[in-house]
């Protein structure tokens, strides 16, 4: 898995994380991406959109830049949102397009030296994210957590999972 040599370790870990997520969602139909099993309030597309919003905020917004994705996504996939509250299904191709392109954009902007200032963010008492490198490392944990949720959504539909 090639990562530019000037990138820190967290970026390779992120690439590995994304590899595992993508192999679980690639090839799923729109119906499978949108299916909400009984007792759940999320679907696979919500988990993908949620990660897209979170990564955008953790990297760009906390580094002082505008959100690099449509602001409406925060109302669909942001913290405390649910897929059961959607009035209509979001544009899946558009969401997936942003999801797939964002890691490349972050790497390019990192190499270009864009992430110089970072507003410290408290994750748990006593532990803060203080740089974009730490933000990417934290995102790997967050993305892994949602891979787990995606696996259970696939299992609920009787779909085979690749697993860890």
């Amino acid at each position, binding site marked *: 898995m090639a990562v530019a040599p000037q990138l820190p370790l967290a970026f390779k870990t992120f690439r590995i994380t994304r590899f595992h997520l993508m192999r679980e969602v690639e090839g799923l139909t729109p119906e499978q991406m949108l299916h909400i099993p009984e007792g759940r309030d999320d679907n696979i597309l919500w988990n993908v959109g949620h990660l897209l919003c979170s990564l955008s905020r953790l990297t760009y917004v906390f580094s002082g830049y505008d959100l690099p994705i449509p602001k409406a996504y925060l109302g669909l996939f942001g913290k405390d949102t649910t897929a059961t509250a959607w009035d209509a299904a979001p544009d899946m191709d558009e969401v997936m397009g942003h999801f797939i392109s964002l890691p490349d954009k972050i790497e390019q902007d990192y190499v270009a030296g864009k992430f110089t200032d970072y507003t410290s963010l408290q994750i748990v008492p006593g532990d803060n994210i203080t740089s974009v490198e730490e933000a990417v490392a934290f995102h790997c944990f*967050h993305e892994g*957590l949602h891979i*787990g949720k995606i696996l259970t959504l696939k299992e609920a539909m009787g779909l085979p999972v690749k697993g860890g």
Partner: protein
Amino acid sequence: MKDRFKNQMNEIVADYQAGKFTDFNKIELTPEVSLDTIDESLGFVIIHESVHIGLAIALKQRLG
């Protein structure tokens, strides 16, 4: 088992700081993905553990 689980991280940190992990046998996860160093391996451990946290959360939700 819980104690071993809780202590394992501290043991790894101590051994890492003591320089015990000098030789690392490359692990090929898939033909496209390999872990080449102990640092990369520890990064992968975080992914793996968080996937299982996600699974545990879903199991807890199923139990109400």
